């Protein structure tokens, strides 16, 4: 059976992370250390695009540059007034906007309001942000239109023409932020649409879903767990979406795993998902 695990970059992430040493509990992270922490976001207002940052255990990390919300965006950006869960691997790349970059990074903004996270902006201090989406009008077609035309968010095609010709089973997942059932735009929207197109192309007789509940081992040893209602809510929402875009509801079966996936550090975020298996 063909198995495609999430985005190809995520598949790589599993392998890479597994090979790395974990530094849970370490005070000063070193290159290749895995870090996971909950903190308030910081924003550095550079002359071009602002940089999202985070400070933890005395280290300032660079998370990413403001990207907007189009087919080009690659990450779900945090919010002031909300804490965020940051998971990633300390990079050996040069600092950006004064912060240490993280590889294989995943940021989840947490749903509850945290007024203490209405933090002051970091001063520019001469830092320059990486190039990104311009702040004013776009130079070319807006992302929304490209989303309508093809794969978005850098998501690869989930299947090939040969997969359709051979009517192969398809296994992939929809990924979520920690403790969230929000279908991320555009990446996960596009995967849902590709799923529907594949189901129709091969005349699939069944879609099996398994909704997972994640936990996360934080640097320092604390474990946080997604709410018990989250996996069912993710499952319900994705079924609602699939039906709306034309997937027959009667071919969908589902299972909710209420027991949290064990928190082990690297790769914890991969459990924030609904597995989907298309049966020809």
């Amino acid at each position, binding site marked *: 059976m063909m198995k495609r695990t999430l985005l190809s970059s995520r598949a790589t992430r599993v392998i890479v992370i597994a090979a790395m040493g974990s530094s849970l509990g370490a005070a000063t992270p070193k290159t290749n250390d895995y870090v996971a922490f909950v903190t308030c976001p910081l*924003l550095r*207002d550079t002359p071009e*695009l*602002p940089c*999202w940052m985070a400070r933890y255990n005395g280290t300032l990390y660079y998370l990413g540059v*403001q*990207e*907007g*919300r189009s087919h080009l*965006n690659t990450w*779900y*950006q*945090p*919010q*002031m*007034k*909300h804490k965020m869960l940051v998971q990633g691997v300390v990079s050996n790349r040069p600092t950006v906007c004064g912060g240490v970059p993280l590889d294989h990074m995943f940021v989840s903004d947490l*749903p*509850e*309001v945290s007024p203490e996270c209405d933090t002051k902006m970091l001063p520019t201090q001469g830092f320059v942000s990486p190039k990104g989406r311009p*702040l*004013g*009008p*776009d*130079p*070319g*077609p*807006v992302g*929304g*239109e490209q*989303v*309508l035309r093809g794969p978005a968010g850098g998501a690869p095609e989930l299947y090939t023409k040969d997969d359709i010709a051979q009517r192969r089973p398809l296994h992939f997942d929809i990924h979520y932020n920690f403790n969230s*059932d*929000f*279908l*991320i*735009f*555009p990446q*996960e*929207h596009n995967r*849902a*649409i590709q799923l*529907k197109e594949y189901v129709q192309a091969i005349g699939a007789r069944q879609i099996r879903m398994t909704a997972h509940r994640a936990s996360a081992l934080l640097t320092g040893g604390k474990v946080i767990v997604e709410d018990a*209602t989250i996996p069912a809510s993710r499952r319900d*929402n994705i079924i*609602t*979406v699939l039906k*709306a*875009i*034309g997937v027959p509801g009667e071919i969908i079966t589902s299972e909710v795993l209420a027991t949290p996936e064990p928190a082990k550090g690297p790769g914890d975020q991969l459990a924030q998902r609904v597995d989907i298996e298309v049966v020809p």
Partner: protein
Amino acid sequence: MVDRRSGLFGFVAVGAVRSVAGRLARRGSGVPSRAAMLAGSIAVVAVLGGAAAAGTKVPRWFGASYDDRLPAYSQFDNAFGKLGVLNESGDVPTKGHPFLAPLGANGRACVTCHQPGNAMSISTDSLRAHWQQAGFRDPVFAAIDGSNCPNLPQDKRASHSLLLDHALFRVPRPWPPRDLSGKAIEPEFSIEVVRDPTGCNLDRKYGIKSADPTISVYRRPRVVANMRFVTSDDTNPRAVIGNKTGLPRAQDPETGKFIYLPLLADGAQPSTRRQSNAAATGHQGFVGKLSADQLKQLDDFMMQIYVAQDYSNGAGRIGGPGGPQGLGTAGFKDTPGPRSAMREDRQVFKTMEEWRHKTPKTPAEEFQASVVRGYDVFFRRPFFIKDVANFTDIGMGNPYKRTCAICHNVQLSGIDNAPGFMDIGVENQPWADPAPHLPLFKLTCKPTAKPHPYLGRVIYTSDPGRALISGRCMDIGNINLSQLRGLAARAPYFTNGSAKDLPTLVDFYNRRFAMKLSPREKTDLVNFLSVL
């Protein structure tokens, strides 16, 4: 071909004409008699071109029955110049037309509250002038929603203060909310009336504890024009999933289409057809359902009428050859819509380079240059958009550094087709301007509900907005943003009328988002908005 016959749409001296019709009407039951309407019609024709009263230019009131036609093109004075009203299909006879003639028992027509001279909305200036002329029995002041509450003495000005002072109509919404099929939704929050200056929300007949529990909020009528650039009928399956909710968009129960809900502030109605029926019964006392012919006439009318400022006191003629092609009623022609226009090669109001005078030689050119600078602020000047529910909480980050046009992005209308429900703080505390004339509600969300992303689970608001339809905590205070055309003709602004004029509107954004606008930038923005 634009018909510039403005004869029948001249301007009348406030108090000089309608008083005849008003006096005749006041003798009767409150519904203007045919004789009163006829008298008004004759009188209007007799004083064409008259000056407005007391320095305030008030466009002539369009009566529900005493005007015989809506011309193909007409102009109406306002404080900034003249508004153009273009009807693509030519003259429209009033008699029997479902938008222009009364449908129900209270003498109102759609046009009563969507006045051509007010950009198919309505302004406080027009309402006050009309109150002076026609008095409380005029259909626009009907008890059902043209007064603060139907239980109040209708002959008192104070009973109509929200309409006369803020151009707000009462909008009753059922509690608990109902979905599009009429089924009750279990809301994620409880609602408590903290302040009830109109008395309606605690009234035994009309309030939240009545036999038919209702919450009254007070809102501005939306512009019923330029609808080709407002409504969207995108059936592409890739557009089915709402990019703000991650869930399917609302579905029109009649057509099955997934829709954007741009029509009302709270998206209560999915289609112009449903809204037409709801307005006929809710505002006009119509009983039953409109016929297919009437609905088609209404749909056609809404799609063929355009409003925009066509003359600026400062800039001169707007639109047409030699001027910015996106402005004026002529600018709507030959432009497809609606489409996003947040890009250099397709700007929201097209290019305004024709008015970018490096060395202005005349006062008109000075003003035109100011308009272009204002457009630059609107289109290009970034600021931090912060704590806007249903916008900065959906993955782009809070705050989000961008320009006005990121939300007002649809070409030629400036509406948002995402759709544009969001909470910018007009209704919800702490950002809302003090509004002791409006009700104040305390909403407490259930612990299991997703909270409002910036206000949490206890929220004070004068209008819960979309939450009164969806029942969702995170939608409290969410309001569909409005189009930007004909602003000069329809003060006050925002759904709750909290900005009494364009400078106040600009000041709100400047304060709310710490834009740090200079005095010149403020003036430029006002000038830009005044020519739309």
